């Protein structure tokens, strides 16, 4: 145990370099700054918005439209100019980003069902999310006004009937059934909510796997490059312990790095999500459908993630042996990245269960697919699929560790190299 801790502390010291600390701090600061910026932009977009209005009509209807703008958090700035061109110029010079032009005769035309076009002008002074949102809000207001005017008209003509019943004679009530539980709600909204809640799992996993694998490969490559491996292999310590300490150290540092990265990422995303309010309705539906992760779910998901990381570390150890130096180690991470990216994108864009059998087998053979699918399977109550995945990863990990330990116990640790020029393994 003393030898293990001695080696482990050396491995950790070697991995936590000044460059790593600086790059992690930089990432953290960058994400925090971007998150804060996004938050302030979103706040600005949600705050009282200025809108310039050039009302040539001055009718009751146009006044009603302006009143509805004021009610929806707009500060209306009336422009008094001779013509439209001058109004556009005046609005453009000011600090407003929106201009609404209501033509003469607008109210009269609406009353006759011959709607005159109102014109909206958006001054794009930047391409931030806030700018895009402003014009979208304006469009929503016009739609709401249209609705108001048509409802008003229908009420006058058919006072005993709800105008909505005339406009939408067919009503629908949506129900969603999951695991035999039923709740009223939109499938799209529920899927979107679950997706939003579990989006972090594949990102965290991808980050940890790539960080840790890169560290193991680099650690072995650096031992070779700095000519320290030969000495280390002749000290009285089991070769399996050497392999294990490298994996444990990289796993720990990778986990810390990923946690720091995710903390930064969360604060970045928090900036965008700061104004998104989750309605209590959808939360109730989610709870009714049992789509929230419980303690058991989190434990099983954690085990799945853990074994995926172990498999990645074992693979990285074997790949690290092929590296001649630190430079060649950078390229050797590619096979692991590919194996992570395939299930990563598949989990986002397709349902693996609907793929053809050969593709399904291929996806399941990739150990990293299992934790990517685990969240969905746990939420859908398919624990057996998750447990089979864990068993598969545990078995694969054992095979890989035995293979890595055997490589470290033989000449191969010194003689096995991947030569890019000749593209063959020389033993």
């Amino acid at each position, binding site marked *: 145990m003393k030898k293990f801790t001695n080696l482990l502390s050396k491995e950790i010291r*070697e991995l936590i*370099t000044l460059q790593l600390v600086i790059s992690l701090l930089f990432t953290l600061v960058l994400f925090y700054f971007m998150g804060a910026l996004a938050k302030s932009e979103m706040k600005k977009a949600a705050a009282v918005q200025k809108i310039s209005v050039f009302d040539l009509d001055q009718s009751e209807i146009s006044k009603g439209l302006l009143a509805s703008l004021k009610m929806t958090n707009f500060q209306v700035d009336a422009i008094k100019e001779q013509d439209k061109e001058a109004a556009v110029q005046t609005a453009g010079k000011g600090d407003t980003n929106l201009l609404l032009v209501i033509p003469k005769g607008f109210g009269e035309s609406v009353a006759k069902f011959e709607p005159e076009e109102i014109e909206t002008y958006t001054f794009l002074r930047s391409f931030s999310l806030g700018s895009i949102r402003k014009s979208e809000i304006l469009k929503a207001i016009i739609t709401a006004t249209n609705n108001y005017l048509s409802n008003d008209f229908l009420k006058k003509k058919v006072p005993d009937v709800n105008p909505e019943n005339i406009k939408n004679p067919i009503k629908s009530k949506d129900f969603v059934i999951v695991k035999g539980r039923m709740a009223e709600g939109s499938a799209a909204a529920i899927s979107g909510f679950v997706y939003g809640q579990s989006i972090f799992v594949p990102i965290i996993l991808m980050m940890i796997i790539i960080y840790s694998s890169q560290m193991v490969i680099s650690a072995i490559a650096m031992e070779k490059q700095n000519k320290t491996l*030969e*000495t280390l*292999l002749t000290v009285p310590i*089991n070769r399996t312990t050497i392999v294990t300490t490298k994996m444990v150290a990289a796993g720990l540092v990778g986990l810390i790095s990923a946690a720091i990265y995710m903390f930064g990422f969360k604060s970045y995303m928090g900036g965008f999500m700061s104004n998104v309010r989750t309605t209590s309705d959808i939360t109730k539906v989610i709870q009714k459908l049992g789509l929230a992760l419980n303690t058991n779910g989190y434990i099983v998901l954690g085990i799945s993630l853990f074994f995926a990381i172990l498999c990645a570390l074992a693979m990285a150890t074997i790949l690290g042996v092929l590296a001649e130096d630190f430079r060649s180690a950078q390229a050797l991470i590619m096979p692991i990245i590919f194996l992570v990216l395939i299930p990563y994108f598949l989990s986002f864009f397709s349902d693996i269960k609907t793929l053809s059998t050969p593709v399904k087998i291929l996806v399941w053979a990739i150990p990293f697919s299992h934790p990517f699918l685990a969240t969905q399977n746990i939420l859908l109550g398919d624990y057996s699929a998750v447990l089979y995945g864990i068993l598969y990863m545990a078995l694969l990990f054992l095979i890989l560790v035995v293979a890595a330990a055997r490589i470290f116990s033989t000449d191969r640790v010194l003689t096995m190299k991947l030569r890019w020029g000749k593209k063959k393994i020389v033993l």
Partner: protein
Amino acid sequence: MDIVLQVEGLKKSYGTLEALKGIDFQVHQGEIFALIGPNGAGKTTTLRIVSTLLTPSGGKVTFLGHDLKKHPEKFREQISYLPEEAGAYRNLKGTKYLRFMANFYANTAGETEEFLKRAAGIADLGNRLDEKVGTYSKGMVRKLLLARALMTRPAMAILDEPTSGLDVINSLEVREIIKKFAREGISVLLSSHNMLEIEFLSDRVALIDKGVILDFGTSRELKEKYQAANLEVVFRSALR
């Protein structure tokens, strides 16, 4: 003198290439045994096998009665290997590196301190031991590594080109240190291109070429046998 290392019919192949074609030699306690030969003769391969880095393709290697194939861990407990192009962890300070290595061999904290004290004496780097290895010159790294190899007083030190990268003064000091440790009972198996060094250091010499030992004996015996003034001429004559 007791035999510490017994090498019998040692063979090593890399694919179709035969690096060692069945060599035999013995190293006694407190003896400095040197392998000399041209590049690719099989010197480093022999040292790497004895230090458990490579597995032999044939033959038998016994160290203090332990068979290499069956008990490589017994070798590792009592040998110390200094590779020709060895390095140390650049991010560690000299003392930290020595402590890290000492911890693999010491059974008590007191023993670790004893190893470190001895290492500091061998390395003779003064306060530079408290600086990171990355700041050391090649010669300083070599002295640190030699200190690492000898601080535990192994039963046998395996030294591949021990003075590689050192200047004349440092080389002389290192040779004296190796001699001193051998006099105290440590066996040394070394290889070198430097014939003067071999002549000064070794008790016995093996001339090796193309994986075969051509001849061996003391420097004096070999010089007499080949009627040569020095080992360089001996080696050239043996090759013919």
